[in-house]
């Protein structure tokens, strides 16, 4: 019954899909009733707090917790010693959640306490004595790559080179993607521009800090309630770290107050569980904002070289990129994604992208919306823009001339299926924004962006109640309205009104494994699984109808929410609605439900084109965003309001990244701006309305043509804004964020 990509035809006429229905979790969220990570309590609950390293790099000689343990109300203190042997796959996680021999960054956890009150826990933290030997540190990516840099991990030998080096370094791995003869391509070009760019690390900036409540019984069974993008991941990792059976741990995903990739891993959950195990009491741990910024997973800071050749007619002859991403104190930055995505918008004969994964004394990076791609697109799209300017060519025309299209060989290997880049470029060219007049000190920027989109392991259960309503259980936490979209797809398939379907996020004991909510996969993959589960249930309902009518099931068809005889030959029977069949379920064979367990493929890549106008104050370097329009391919917008919301939210996060957001480290390697006061995310008064134009080029890999939409929207803004500011200021900007001092300096005013 499952959808067969390439075989089954795509549905094009919809009743529910494409409409703006109320969201199922809406009422709870506007009344304050919704329960987020920090909102859950348990009887006998203790408060957990974590002690963090004040040093960027330090050997931990000794930790003395005796005084802390003696504080009245303290029931447990844990350190790295409480996390025993674990599988190799989670070794880095084990070290990141609690420092062992060394503290590797400012904010690295070194110990934790659980006490009856926060005040007692706070007092106990102060009494933990850590004997540090402060070591030389490095936080900048280019500095970290120098042979003279302090070596953070002496077991790290660069992978991906022809010969593995004998000396350890901070370069974890080298990657290379591409095809064709790049040198020859560059030689052919009428103009080659080569530039180096730098971007600072940013944070996802979700408003809800990480929070969890863990409860571990002496029988070895445990529960975690937490805000996460993947409760199955939390179960796997925590059970592995604590040496538990996976099924002995049940994880329930709370409402989640934003994630953007930052909640696809664990930080406090294993610590809370260890504290609960030791104290035999439920333990709640909630990060402060300062902890979130110091010790969760920001992005890489990067340093990127780009060389692109172009002919006078706008043809790109070759593209070459070298990308260096520091991903914090452990290997695994998003540089491979950056290198793969850098030139994905262009159909090139010769292209090469080399990536270096670098470690530094910073928190281990985590995913942030299209991880790795925005910085790469920033650098490439800046050089394309400069080439257009130098050759006096229209930036949209040049992109249309070189754009990847159906069947193009992607710069990272495969051939694209049906894609919508051209459609977004054409929509931008036809939009009034592109022709609008600009004033003094104002400029316009254009940029394109790409994201792969993921599928992945997905399990969905759909239950038909006796009254004809539907319970739909999915296992992918809802970070942007996915319950509405998935519920609506199930309603569409079953032919019932959307409000007859209630979609919930089931816990890890109630459903098969689900990959985390990432890669813009949920509306695609959980949606696909929900459609398949609905088809499974429809098959069963057709069987019941066939039984009631006494005809073969092949003679029954499902249409508009009811089983009907497929042809006059099947006899004359009044249609049996879903509710009719459900009401008789007990008498016709028992409960009716549909399931789907799938490793979803065919996610369908997504492209966007952004247009932005800015104004630069030449006396202060202040940049005002005047107008912003997003054109993005959604395949099929299941819930247009939330698709627009993704476009707008991604664009604004990109605006923040481009203009003001950055991790600022002091000379001592400590984070200087660990709060929302100085980690400056855009506020309402900084922004204009963000116009969202939905382009729909159906994805052949989904029964309704759906593509993921969550991430692509953050890929173009960095470049679009930089191109716009460069246009307004008359000088090419090559560093992010374009904070006022940097802009004023580029203008030569200071």
């Amino acid at each position, binding site marked *: 019954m499952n959808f067969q990509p390439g075989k089954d035809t795509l549905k094009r006429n919809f009743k529910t899909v494409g409409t703006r229905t109320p969201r199922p979790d809406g009422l709870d969220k506007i009344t304050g009733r919704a329960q987020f990570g920090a909102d859950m309590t348990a009887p006998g609950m203790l408060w957990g707090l974590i002690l963090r390293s004040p040093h960027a790099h330090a050997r931990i000689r000794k930790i003395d917790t005796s005084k802390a343990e003696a504080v009245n109300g303290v029931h447990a203190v844990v350190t790295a010693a409480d996390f025993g042997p674990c599988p190799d796959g989670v070794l880095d996680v084990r070290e990141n959640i609690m420092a062992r021999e060394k503290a590797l960054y400012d904010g690295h956890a070194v110990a934790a306490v659980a006490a009856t009150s926060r005040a007692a826990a706070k007092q106990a933290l102060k009494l933990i004595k850590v004997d540090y030997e402060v070591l030389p540190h490095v936080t900048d990516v280019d500095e970290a790559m120098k042979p003279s840099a302090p070596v953070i991990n002496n077991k790290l030998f660069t992978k991906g080179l022809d010969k593995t080096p004998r000396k350890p370094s901070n370069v974890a791995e080298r990657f290379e993607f591409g095809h064709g003869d790049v040198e020859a391509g560059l030689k052919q070009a009428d103009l080659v521009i080569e530039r180096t760019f730098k971007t600072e690390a940013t944070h996802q900036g979700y*408003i809800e800090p990480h929070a969890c409540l863990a409860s571990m019984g002496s029988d070895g069974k445990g529960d975690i309630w937490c805000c996460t993008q993947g409760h199955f991941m939390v179960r796997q990792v925590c059970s592995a770290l604590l040496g538990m059976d996976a099924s002995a741990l049940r994880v329930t995903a709370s409402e989640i107050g934003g994630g953007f990739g930052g909640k696809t891993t664990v930080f406090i959950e294993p610590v809370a569980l260890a504290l609960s195990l030791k104290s035999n009491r439920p333990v709640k741990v909630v990060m402060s904002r300062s902890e979130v910024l110091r010790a969760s997973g920001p992005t890489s800071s990067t340093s990127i070289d780009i060389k692109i050749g172009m002919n006078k007619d706008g043809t790109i002859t070759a593209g070459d990129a070298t990308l260096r991403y520091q991903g914090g104190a452990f290997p695994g930055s998003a540089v491979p994604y950056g290198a793969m995505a850098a030139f994905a918008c262009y159909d090139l004969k010769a292209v090469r992208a080399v990536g270096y994964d670098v470690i530094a004394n910073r928190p281990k990076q985590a995913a942030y919306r299209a991880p790795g791609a925005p910085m790469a697109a920033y650098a490439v799209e800046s050089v394309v823009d400069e080439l257009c300017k130098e050759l006096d060519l229209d930036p949209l025309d040049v992109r249309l001339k070189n754009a990847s299209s159906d069947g193009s060989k992607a710069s990272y290997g495969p051939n694209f299926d049906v894609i919508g880049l051209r459609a977004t470029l054409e929509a931008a060219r036809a939009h009034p924004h592109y022709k609008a007049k600009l004033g003094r000190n104002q400029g316009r920027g254009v940029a394109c962006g790409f994201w792969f989109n993921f599928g992945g392991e997905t399990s969905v259960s759909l239950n038909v109640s006796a009254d004809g309503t539907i319970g739909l259980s999915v296992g992918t936490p809802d970070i942007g309205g996915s319950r509405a979209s998935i519920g609506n797809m199930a309603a569409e398939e079953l032919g019932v009104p959307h409000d007859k379907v209630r979609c919930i996020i089931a816990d890890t004991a109630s459903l098969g494994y689900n990959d985390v909510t990432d890669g813009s996969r949920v509306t695609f993959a959980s949606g696909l699984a929900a459609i398949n589960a609905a088809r499974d249930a429809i098959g069963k309902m057709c069987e019941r109808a066939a039984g009631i009518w006494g005809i073969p099931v092949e003679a029954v068809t499902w249409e508009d929410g009811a089983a009907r005889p497929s042809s006059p030959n099947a006899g004359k029977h009044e249609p049996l609605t879903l509710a009719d069949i459900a009401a008789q379920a007990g008498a016709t064979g028992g409960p009716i439900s549909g399931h789907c367990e799938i490793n979803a493929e065919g996610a369908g890549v997504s492209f966007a084109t952004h247009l932005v106008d800015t104004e630069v104050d030449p006396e202060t370097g202040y940049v005002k965003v005047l107008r912003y329009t997003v054109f993005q391919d959604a395949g099929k917008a299941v819930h247009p309001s939330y698709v627009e919301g993704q476009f707008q939210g991604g664009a604004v996060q990109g605006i923040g990244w481009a203009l003001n957001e950055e991790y600022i480290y002091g000379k001592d390697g400590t984070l200087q701006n660990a709060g929302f006061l100085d980690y400056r995310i855009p506020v309402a008064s900084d922004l204009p309305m963000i116009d969202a134009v939905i382009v729909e080029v159906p994805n052949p890999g989904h029964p309704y043509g759906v593509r993921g939409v969550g991430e692509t929207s953050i890929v173009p803004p960095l470049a679009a804004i930089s191109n716009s500011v460069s246009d307004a200021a008359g000088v090419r900007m090559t560093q992010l964020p374009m904070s006022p001092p940097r802009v004023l300096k580029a203008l030569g005013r200071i």
Partner: protein
Amino acid sequence: MFQIQVSTSINGDDTEFSCEADETLLDVLRDRLGMTGSKEGCGTGDCGACSVVVDGRLVCSCLMLGAEAQGREIETIEGMADGTELHPLQQKFLDHAALQCGVCTPGFLVAAKSLLERNDDPTEEEVRYWLAGNLCRCTGYDKIVRAVLDTAKDMRKPAKTKKPAAKKRVKA
């Protein structure tokens, strides 16, 4: 430890609680009174997720001590709807899809209500500046601002004339 006894009114209900001297009103609401609708996004007055109204004035409950609540009248998100009847802003937030994750939503609603009680015909700029202390990371603010403007439009009586502009900022 020495605890302070406080009598106050929350959403019209007489409420008594005891708290430590250094506990914030937000801590009291969430941890002592079980009113978790007010959220802690920062604890330093930078995000507005804990917005409440005290004696008619919009404040961050993380920047006020619980002890200061003595004799005051406090309004929180939990009191915004009248029974099952939603406040017009709440309905418009749903209609405009002005929320994604929803964690900032209570703060935005409380703050927006406070604006509309002072200015029933705000400009887009006035809405944006009034709400500048409420951070939202999901929506880019577009749909939130539209929802507030649309609510104001609906709530205005046709005959009412525009009040003088509240505050308008000029960027230095």
